[in-house]
């Protein structure tokens, strides 16, 4: 979610709610010599409101699973999730009166802090990373298809290097025409040269490139770094006959595409990885919060 002008309404409402809650807390705290407590009426109100927000925020996961349901625009749900989630933390602090309480309350507060902080981190990540991904990866594909595309790149490299049989390889390229940009595929006929001349290419493919097209260990490959890759291909060009130079350039293009896919994979993991922290902790918070509420109200 991008934090832009379209969020102004939510931001101002959240700020207003925060100010109201702060003033209320200040008034309540001033009236109680021992400080405000979670069990008092205002304390329960703050706690109840914060827990209600937590429950509502947890429903975002349900909303996502029921993608086809007509229960309000998902964008509206996310905005509510983010801004009410931000508001929930001061509310819970007001509920606790800025005290840690017993072990359960302490655990809950730590959990709440982690959930809130991971949520804020996620919000910032999803604010910046889409732009970074768009700018740095111009040959993006569907994330789940990355391994298949890598395997396809390797097959195309083998076709280019193999050369025999008049086969055609599809070499992906990033192409820009004005404002249009995208991955295009150019057909390349394999160059027919004697097998002896192709030997350096075959060795290079087997020894250096093959590992680069694997799904793991890409960053340890010498082809990962731009300058090393350029040097390796320059060296390769010196070892092959001039007729095969276009093939080396196509192989370099395949490596460049592989690099892009790896960058995409990494950014994608960052963009969604924080959810592996945020979501389980949030469910734990919902469960422990319920236990805390029942226990506190019962005793």
């Amino acid at each position, binding site marked *: *979610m*991008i934090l832009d002008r*379209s969020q102004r309404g939510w931001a101002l409402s959240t700020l207003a709610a925060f100010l109201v809650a702060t003033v209320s807390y200040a008034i309540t705290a001033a009236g109680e010599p021992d400080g405000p407590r979670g069990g008092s009426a205002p304390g329960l109100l703050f706690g109840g409101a914060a827990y209600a927000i937590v429950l509502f925020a947890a429903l975002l996961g349900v909303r*996502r699973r*029921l*993608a*086809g*349901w*007509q229960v309000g*625009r*998902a*964008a509206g*749900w*996310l905005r509510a999730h983010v801004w009410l989630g931000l508001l929930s933390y001061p509310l819970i602090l007001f509920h606790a009166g800025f005290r840690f309480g017993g072990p359960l309350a302490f655990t809950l507060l730590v959990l709440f802090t982690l959930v809130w902080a991971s949520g804020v981190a996620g919000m910032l990540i*999803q604010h910046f*990373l*889409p*732009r970074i*991904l*768009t700018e740095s990866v*111009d040959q993006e*594909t*569907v*994330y789940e298809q990355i391994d298949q595309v890598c395997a396809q790149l390797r097959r195309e490299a083998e076709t280019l290097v193999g050369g025999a049989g008049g086969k055609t390889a599809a070499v992906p390229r990033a192409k820009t*025409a*004005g*404002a*249009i*940009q*995208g991955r295009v595929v150019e057909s390349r006929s394999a160059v027919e040269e004697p097998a002896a001349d192709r030997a350096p290419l075959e060795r290079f493919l087997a020894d250096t490139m093959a590992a680069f097209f694997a799904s793991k260990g890409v960053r340890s490959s010498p082809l990962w770094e731009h300058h090393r890759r350029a040097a390796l291909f320059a060296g390769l060009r010196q070892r092959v006959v001039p007729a095969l130079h276009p093939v080396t350039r196509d192989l370099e293009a395949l490596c460049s595409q592989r690099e892009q896919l790896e960058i995409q994979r990494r950014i*994608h993991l960052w*963009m*969604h990885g924080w959810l592996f922290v945020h979501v389980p902790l949030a469910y734990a918070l919902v469960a422990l919060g319920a236990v805390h509420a029942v226990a506190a109200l019962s005793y």
Partner: protein
Amino acid sequence: MATPEEPVGRLVGEALTAEEMLALPVFEGTSKALLEKNIGAVVRRVFPPGEIICREGEFGSTAFYILEGAAEVFLATPLAHLKGKPRRSGLFGRMASFLQSWARRAPEGEADPGGGGTIPVDGPVDLPLDNPIADLGERDLFGEMTCINFYPRSATVRAKTRVVALEMLRNMLDVLKRGSKAFKEQLDTNYRERALSTHLKSLPLFRGLTPEFVEKLRERVELVSFEPGKVICGQGDPADKLFLIRMGFVKVSQASPGGDVTLQYLHRGDYFGEMGLLGSGVRTATCTALDHVEVVQIGREEFEEMMREFPAMRAGMEQKAREHAASNALRMESLAALPVDEFLEQGLMGAQSLLLIDLERCTRCDACVHACAATHEGVTRLVRDGLRYDKYLVPTSCRSCMDPLCMIGCPVGSIRRKEDLEIVIEDWCIGCGLCAKNCPYGNINMHILGEAEGGGEEKKAKPKQKAITCDLCAGQASGPSCVYACPHDAALRVDPREFFLEERGR
């Protein structure tokens, strides 16, 4: 006579000599020399009861003329529902499905199946939508569109009794149509007697015609053919006829400063020419035959008589004409305001409702894809991949093109454009895949439904499939699911002309 059952050219069957052909009434009047030149282009075939003569969706190049026996023509592909219909399980899921289907149901009188209750097929009859099966008998010709225009077979034909039929290639069909007056007359009579009234009744606007008036029309209409590329009526010409398409595809275009703009494609069962007749008396657009087209011409006199006798029909037609004129004017107007730059090359200009994904907002969570799948029985109609325009991704999803090339050639007319923007593929799609092949952007997918029985000579099982494309979640009050389900406001459905003009202004 050639050896029976010996393959002759591309045909398998009993080849006929010129003498044998001339002995058949259907060849009466054709030149013997011409027939001798085309030996091998027609064979006699015998089909035992129950045998499939031709199968829907298959590509062929022959037509069949029944000499003896009876056959039935039907759609073997189930009228499967691949429209927006969520798949849910569990009590809450079923409740939600019920509520949603109730909310999305078409209002009374709006359940227009496109053909108004019939499915046009490549034969002398149309198939009723509720029970798509009809009979063929002696002297019936079917497979004409496949033979002439090489479109896929539109329906399956099975012998009911022992059927003796002539299977012929296009050259022989041409010889017959041009040389045999008897054959031409037979086809015209068959059409007038069996298909004309069905065609008229299949059009909502003509449903009010009385049987007496249809009878009168039957005698007075003209059946005319046009070769591919031939202009049927030109913009600015005097309007003197209404045309009802009997066979083939017609392109309707209007002249604009940047060249001709295609307004729509019409196919069997559609009509055109009414705007000129009802309005200024001058043609408002040019109609061109895209392939071999046969039309029924209703003259001005009959048309005016029809308008006089059926005022309700006149009102309906005038209303339709006004709607068409307004939408055409809007299109031409927006085209005139267009910037001519590279985005035109990508066909973005031709789109009417384009799905864009703002890549600076999109977290690649695929909520749009999941929502699309959830709305359409688990099968997504959108792939989040494609070219970028500026910071927007143009994913693989129907653009509702202004020039919907996908609509050309559908043998059963199941892909069509509604009055609003969306392109819909109706349930009677036979899965031939022509629309998917024709779409320049790869935005129509074939969805496998299951295994079908083997057919014809080969008994190999063939998968049943249907074409699917984005229908903009037609009927869903909240609009397209992909946009509705995007948590980041990254998915947008826009009119590209307005949207990019506005973007440039920023």
